[in-house]
């Protein structure tokens, strides 16, 4: 009990002092951010002793997306298949990690995860293309990083299901799609209709097809010829027209109001909406048309002003969140009868001060929280929110980029751990106030303290080691 009366320990002044403190505390979650950080290169052995001290930690860290890349690379040298499997599934795993995993004759689940990993280097994916295992091949085909060359290698033995995946793959080129088209498999034919590299002759047949489902698929293809797009914009099927509106780049294709609401909704979202059509859509009976219109970033101001007075709260809410909503309209929305509308304008930095002052007195939870995030909120308002009974309102203060330390201090002692974890990383909080939370009972808070200090003392992250991909290709596991 006497310890609580003692002044809190001062924060480490530099990386060396931080590393000493980390070694002394030996807390894995506090130490984790330091692994591989600039200035901490000499401390890897010490950190490993702490971070690898328990099997549970290896399994947990291997799965966490915020584990430092360098430590994931270190874990790849672990022998436990469950650790390797988690690393292969971790979106943060680097090409180096994945290559290390591949060299260790991994089990099927791990090979599947490597094949589907976006960071897998081309040489590794090429090695996996020879796999007889269908699940590995499917993972490769679902991986957007799989190269065109690898896709061509997969073509010969592709099953109908794999052919369909090939036909939709973003790296598929015209030659590959032509070869697929020659196989005349309905699923692959349908998939390639949306692909920008779809062979023109294939598209030509598709947009004239009698089946609206086929026309709908090709209507969204940006490679569609102008004549075809014009025809599809006038298609008798509303689904086809809506898809064509989404794909149409120019305003000339959007000159008329459509009878179908789904088409008008697509028009309302179009970035080159002609003013006349925008005005008409602003009076549309369909609330979703008006809502989408209110979210359109290129909407003329006069129409936006009209939507601010719409009879539907959801439309006014969307208008109030529009980046170009004029200040006088914001003032009006700030006194809206619907709290959700007021909450939409409350966090805006461009909200006029008088309107913000009025909203500071609003007791609705959503408005209260939104005001807490407003960078112009007054100190009294922030302090009131920092001790608010609602956990989300208190968190809003921690998320406010301009919240001063005095307002952050109460949230630093928040019973809800996530609020402490967010607050402790706030740049306006002095290190001296963040450092005592290195003893927080919650691992996520201690990790946040470690991450804060490491980022301040080692501002530039260490880049992943360069990987001589070509040179390493023959060294891959025989299983690959």
């Amino acid at each position, binding site marked *: 009990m006497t310890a609580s009366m003692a002044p809190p320990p001062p924060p480490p002044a530099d990386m060396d002092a931080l590393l000493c403190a980390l070694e002394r505390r030996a807390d894995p979650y506090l130490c984790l951010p330091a692994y591989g950080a600039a200035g901490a290169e000499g401390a890897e052995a010490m950190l490993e002793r702490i971070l690898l001290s328990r099997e549970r930690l290896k399994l947990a860290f291997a799965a966490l997306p915020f584990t430092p890349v360098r430590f994931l690379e270190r874990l790849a040298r672990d022998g436990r298949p*469950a650790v390797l499997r988690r690393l292969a599934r971790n979106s943060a795993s680097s090409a180096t990690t994945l290559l290390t995993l591949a060299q260790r004759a991994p089990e099927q689940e791990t090979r599947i995860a490597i094949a589907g990993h976006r960071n897998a280097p081309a040489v590794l994916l090429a090695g996996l293309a020879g796999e007889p295992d269908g699940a590995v091949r499917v993972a490769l085909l679902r991986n957007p990083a799989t190269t065109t060359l690898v896709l061509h290698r997969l073509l010969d033995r592709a099953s109908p299901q794999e052919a369909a995946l090939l036909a939709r793959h973003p790296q598929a080129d015209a030659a590959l799609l032509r070869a697929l088209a020659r196989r005349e498999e309905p699923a692959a034919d349908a998939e390639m209709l949306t692909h920008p590299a779809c062979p023109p002759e294939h598209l030509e047949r598709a947009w004239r097809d009698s089946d609206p489902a086929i026309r709908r698929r090709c209507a969204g293809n940006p490679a569609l010829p102008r004549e075809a797009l014009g025809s599809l914009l006038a298609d008798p099927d509303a689904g086809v027209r809506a898809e064509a509106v989404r794909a149409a780049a120019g305003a000339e294709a959007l000159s008329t109001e459509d009878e179908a609401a789904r088409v008008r909704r697509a028009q309302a979202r179009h970035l080159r909406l002609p003013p006349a059509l925008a005005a008409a859509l602003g009076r549309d009976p369909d609330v979703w048309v008006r809502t989408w219109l209110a979210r359109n970033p290129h909407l003329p101001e006069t129409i936006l002003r009209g939507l601010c007075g719409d009879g539907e709260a959801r439309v006014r809410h969307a208008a109030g969140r529009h980046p170009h909503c004029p200040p006088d309209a914001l003032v009006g929305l700030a006194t809206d009868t619907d709290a959700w509308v007021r909450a939409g304008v409350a966090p805006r930095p461009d909200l006029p001060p008088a309107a913000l002052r009025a909203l500071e007195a609003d007791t609705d939870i959503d408005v209260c929280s939104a005001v807490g995030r407003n960078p112009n909120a007054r100190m009294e308002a922030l302090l009131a929110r920092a001790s608010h009974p609602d956990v989300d309102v208190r968190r809003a203060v921690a998320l406010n980029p301009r919240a001063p330390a005095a307002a952050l201090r109460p949230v630093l002692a928040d019973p809800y751990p996530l609020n402490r974890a967010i607050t402790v990383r706030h740049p306006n909080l002095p290190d001296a106030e963040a450092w005592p939370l290195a003893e927080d009972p919650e691992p996520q808070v201690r990790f946040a303290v470690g991450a804060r200090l490491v980022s301040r003392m080692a501002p530039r992250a260490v880049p992943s080691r360069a990987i001589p991909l070509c040179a390493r290709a023959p060294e891959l596991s025989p299983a690959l």
Partner: protein
Amino acid sequence: MKILVPVKRVASLDDEFELRDDGRDVDPDFCEFDLNEFDEYALETAVLIKESAPEGAVEVVVLTIGPDDADDTLRKALAKGADRAIRVDDADLGDADRVAIARAIAKVAEREEPGLVLCGAQSSDFGHAQTGMSVAALLGWPRVAVVSRLDYAPGTATATVERELEGGLVERLEVETPAVLTIQLGINTPRYASLRAIKQANAKAIESLAPADLGLSAGETGGAGALSRVRRVYVPERGKSEMIEGTPAQQAARLLEIIEEVQG
């Protein structure tokens, strides 16, 4: 007046896990351990009763049966408002079943003489929902399971409770105290412990008892006192699926083969 709240340190599994070598449980490396969620509601119920009574009129005592590691669970309960914590440790605990655990809880209840024993309706890891009822049976006290509302003034001879039944029905009962109630999720909103309370809880002593201290013989605890034994924990083999490929004729032929295989 005392309220006794038995709590359990439960395991929550990772998305994927491995079993122990003996095949009778999950490898603890793949588990996170925490206070049983149902027990959080039971504890909150007890703390709310305490807070509604005059200062010092109600003492909330938390109890767990387990090794040193379980102290974390007790400290969490202390930080959330419990006044005192007891841990019963048993070297043979790993093989104890609900009845063997309940014997220890019942002995502590006899010693503490609480007005209420509030248990979670079940544990979130094994979900037997037997411990609370076993405690009541051993004590010979009234019991009500899956309580979704409790009205109780400390020191009174009865409590009014509600239980949710099938079809949206609610059963309201009056139960004599002392009684054992098992508390359902949603009866209240469990609080988060403040940092100050967590620090204070870390400084509190936890009373540690051996089964012998409670008058339990070796044959009444652990595996020897259990009425059931886990023989095997396993993941059942999943049903197989097959993607039927080829031309429509080939697909129809394969489908026919499968039907014949299934029919035997």
